[in-house]
């Protein structure tokens, strides 16, 4: 079947089997391998991308369901060589260790901050409830999102934990 969509601002189309999952379309057809496949069951969130502005799990959506949609993947977050504030937050606050969950985490966190520009720690943890991390214990991920939120609001990010922040 023919599918067409806009991915990171680029119009793409391809002939796919109906059973092709959106994540495979993104990784194998478009060669955008920043979107990861972790559990393949819908639980880990490593495959999170935005479809029409909302975070979804691309391992649990068919490419044909996304026909006509606007898709953003992790590769579409930086612009003109500048990291997205959430990407910068993960960098500045060590929000990752192995990095496997990171693309999905960033997509979920960015969507959360779109909806709620100043989330509490509890709201951040709920906002990323669909994303599992096996390394960090989430602490620095929460700090990274707080950093990004402050940046996006035009405020000074809180000091990092290792410099006496909380």
């Amino acid at each position: 079947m023919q599918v067409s969509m806009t991915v990171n601002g680029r119009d793409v189309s391809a002939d796919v089997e109906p059973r092709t999952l959106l994540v495979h379309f993104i990784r194998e057809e478009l060669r955008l391998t920043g979107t990861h496949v972790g559990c393949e069951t819908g639980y880990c969130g490593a495959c999170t991308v935005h479809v029409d502005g909302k975070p979804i799990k691309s391992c649990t959506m068919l490419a044909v369901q996304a026909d006509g949609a606007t898709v953003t993947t992790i590769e579409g977050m930086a612009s003109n060589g500048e990291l997205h504030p959430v990407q910068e937050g993960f960098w500045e606050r060590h929000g990752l260790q192995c990095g496997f969950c990171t693309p999905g985490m960033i997509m979920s966190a960015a969507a959360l901050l779109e909806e709620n520009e100043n989330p509490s720690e509890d709201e951040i943890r709920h906002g990323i409830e669909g994303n599992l991390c096996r390394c960090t214990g989430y602490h620095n991920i929460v700090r990274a999102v707080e950093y990004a939120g402050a940046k996006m609001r035009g405020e000074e990010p809180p000091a990092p934990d290792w410099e006496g922040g909380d």
Partner: protein
Amino acid sequence: MYPRQFDYVAPGSLDEAFGALGDTSKVMAGGMSLIPLMKMRLFSPGTVVDIGRIGGLDTIDDHGDHISIGALVRHAETASSGAVPTALATAASLTGDVQVRNRGTTCGALAHADVAADQPAGALACGAVMVAQSASGTREIPASEFFVDALTSALHHDEILTSVKIPKAGDGEGSAYDKLGRRGGRSDYAVAGAAAWVKKSNGSIEAARVALTGVGTKPQLADGVAEALVGTDGSDGAVEAAADRALEGVTVLEDLYGSEEYKSHLAKVYVTRAVKQALANI
């Protein structure tokens, strides 16, 4: 993990969809339950009829004494619209996670009829009525007759659940939902959970509906609790005594997440919590 091959159709109207439904077809709404089942090859339909592109099914409409939630209304919207009675709205807000709530539909969660799902209990407590349409007409099925068995609803193969009707909360009415999730707290499917709806007048409970999820063979009403509540003042003592009847007519099944004893205990705990919260929500 790929599903087996299937034919895919995305009809633009209900009539076209009815025409595409056959013996080996399956309706797909959000795909949040269907796609994982197909990927694990526990289920391999010949044709997937994706109703996602049918217009007019994605709204919550006000009909005076009730609202109707269309087949393409996602969990996220049911949770946040403000128009949906608390028991169902809360159940939707506790379904899966952010990404699941952005794709999965309330009607899909009802049609899927999972024993451990959240919204079926909310729908039961709220006195929902399912609107099932097929080429031969429209049937209305009360929630109390809709959940037949594990993963089995009263829908026929050629029917689409086009909407669910929910009576609006009137004066003196309140509802609530609470659960213990499989991942602890309220995360993920229910190990056990309960929804409650109560109506009070002149200081006493005039009517009640209480529903259980996660404990039995299907989402079901706990009629004994409702019966015990009616006529009481809804005091903590009365609620706790009524909750003792939570398991009347329920076959408690142990599963990976809890023994029969544990689930029986949880059923009473969550019935108590849901009823107290429903009373507080009046």
